[in-house]
């Protein structure tokens, strides 16, 4: 089975005309093939949409591109063999990322120490390089910060629920 490529929707022209893009987004969602993702381009981070889409059964992954445009991918939950079992918000296709350039063992550190270590290390990586980290728990406060800085992530709990595995792919250098 092959997954169709994501459908792309750029809402910037709609917003530029001063119109509300919600209808166009919903129409695009309704027209998706089974398992197909929607990739949306917006001039800002469309946070209110995430909850709407979660309720419609879509996982969201967002990142800010180098040109300042927000690229948000809505993936139907439970689709795509490489993404099965990943936490909501994980970037789609993380199974095809390169091997980690760096492995961080962050078990037994108190929050927010794991977040500090990951953000410090990912800042040093070249764009596209991947970092793997092992943590005690899902780093909830890290995710918005990664998205804000244009990095992608994918993570899930290990089968025994005792540790959390996180991959971060560095975006463009941010400073």
């Amino acid at each position, binding site marked *: 089975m092959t997954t169709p490529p994501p459908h792309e929707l750029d809402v910037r022209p709609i917003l530029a005309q001063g119109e509300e893009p919600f209808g166009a987004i919903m129409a695009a969602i309704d027209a998706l093939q089974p398992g197909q993702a929607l990739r949306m381009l917006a001039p800002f981070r469309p946070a209110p949409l*995430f909850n709407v889409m979660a309720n419609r059964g879509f996982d969201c992954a967002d990142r800010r591109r180098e040109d300042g445009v927000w690229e948000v991918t809505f993936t139907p939950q439970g689709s795509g063999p490489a993404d099965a079992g990943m936490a909501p918000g994980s970037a789609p296709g993380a199974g095809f990322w390169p091997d980690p350039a760096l492995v961080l063992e962050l078990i037994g550190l108190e929050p927010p120490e794991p977040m*500090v270590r990951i953000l410090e290390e*990912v800042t040093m990586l070249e764009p596209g390089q991947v970092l793997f980290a092992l943590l005690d728990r899902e780093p909830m406060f890290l995710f*918005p910060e990664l998205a804000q800085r244009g990095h992608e992530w994918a993570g899930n709990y290990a089968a025994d629920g005792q540790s959390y595995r996180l991959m971060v792919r560095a975006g463009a250098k941010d*400073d």
Partner: protein
Amino acid sequence: MPGKSLSPWTLSWFGSAMIALLLALVLALAAGIGPEDFDRPEALAIVHLFALGWLAQVMLGALVQFVPVLAARPLAFSRLALPALLASSLGTLALAGGFLSLDGYEIARPFFLLGPVALGLGFAMLAVMILATLVTRQTLRLPEVRMVLVALAGLAGLWLSGAAMVSTLAGSRVAVDLSQALPLHMLFGIGGFLTFAAFGVSYKLFAMFLLAPEAASWQRRAVFALAAMMAGLMLTGLLMLAGDAGITPLLIAVCGISLAGAALYLDDVRRLWQARRRAHPELNMSWSRMALGFLALSVLLLPFAIWQGGALARASVFAALVGWLSTLTLAQMIRITAFLTWIQIFAPLIGRRKVPTVQSLTHPRRAGLALTIWSLSAAIGTLSLATGFHAGFRLALCGLLIAATQILCELVAIRSLSHLPAPERPGLLPPLILPAFLKSQHSAENQI
């Protein structure tokens, strides 16, 4: 996770709750409330200022922050957070004012009915936010989530029983037997709502601060089953009250369940404590242990409270509200405020400059001293209520006020980063208790 994990209004809830706490303590001292005075209308007003204005608001504010973390998704209908806060603050003040009408202040009478209406509106908005965020297939499996849902059922029971009592006291047609409704109302508030919510939140917080495994235990599942049973029994009690039936057998069953549930909860926390990876727990955890001691004391007093009422009932309620729930909340609030402040100010700076530790935002000795005074006063207060010792109770109130004032100063110091050396402080700080989302978004945009 998409969306910000920080709920912008959490600190506003905390701030409003701290104001209510100080106001309640100042008024209790000013009105000369003693151990035997809890039937006086002023005392009822103050008790509600404390229980609703302080404890319920701080708990609801914590839930607004905590529920998105629990469900790993953003808070649904987050725009309701401000109207809910305003409605619950207004409702608390109106209710407290309304009690004074029982003393003949006719001018306060309209407020008496306004109180439950505004509170109901605020609680309903919160319930919508919390339920819409929590109720998904994945999250409903978690015992912590179920516990929070039971707590919401307790909140509904608290409101229903309270509204029925206000209606009775205001002389309207809907009337209930107050002597039966009162114990049920208190059990709904202290047990059904506040304690269950504290249980649900504490499992996750304790595991995080102790660096202990998060996996659920059989004790946790059993506590949830007992809590659900207790909420069911109490809601049945509410129906029986409407039908003028006696609820004493039901109260005895609730008392038995409370004893078993509290014992299992304490055993579960002991298990977490022993499995912890952090050798020396921080201040918030060592003082949470003190709070757990008060939980045990209050539950042990419960059978006497139900059978005898009077002084031991007052002691049990005081141990629960002031010793267990307030000590736990105050200890955790200091830590959580420091954590949220750190995330708000320093998370965007990680990797770009050296960031201080969360601990360096706090002054553990000052907070520890305040929590010592608080706990000691809670113990003296409980003992004085049990023995009817007037001077002891007044002394306890003084101690509580001193401790609360110190904690407020510490919270302000944390928010304004005053424990940090000046070079480590960023030039622009977020507002003390109002959300800074517009401003922080703006500054984050500029940094990229």
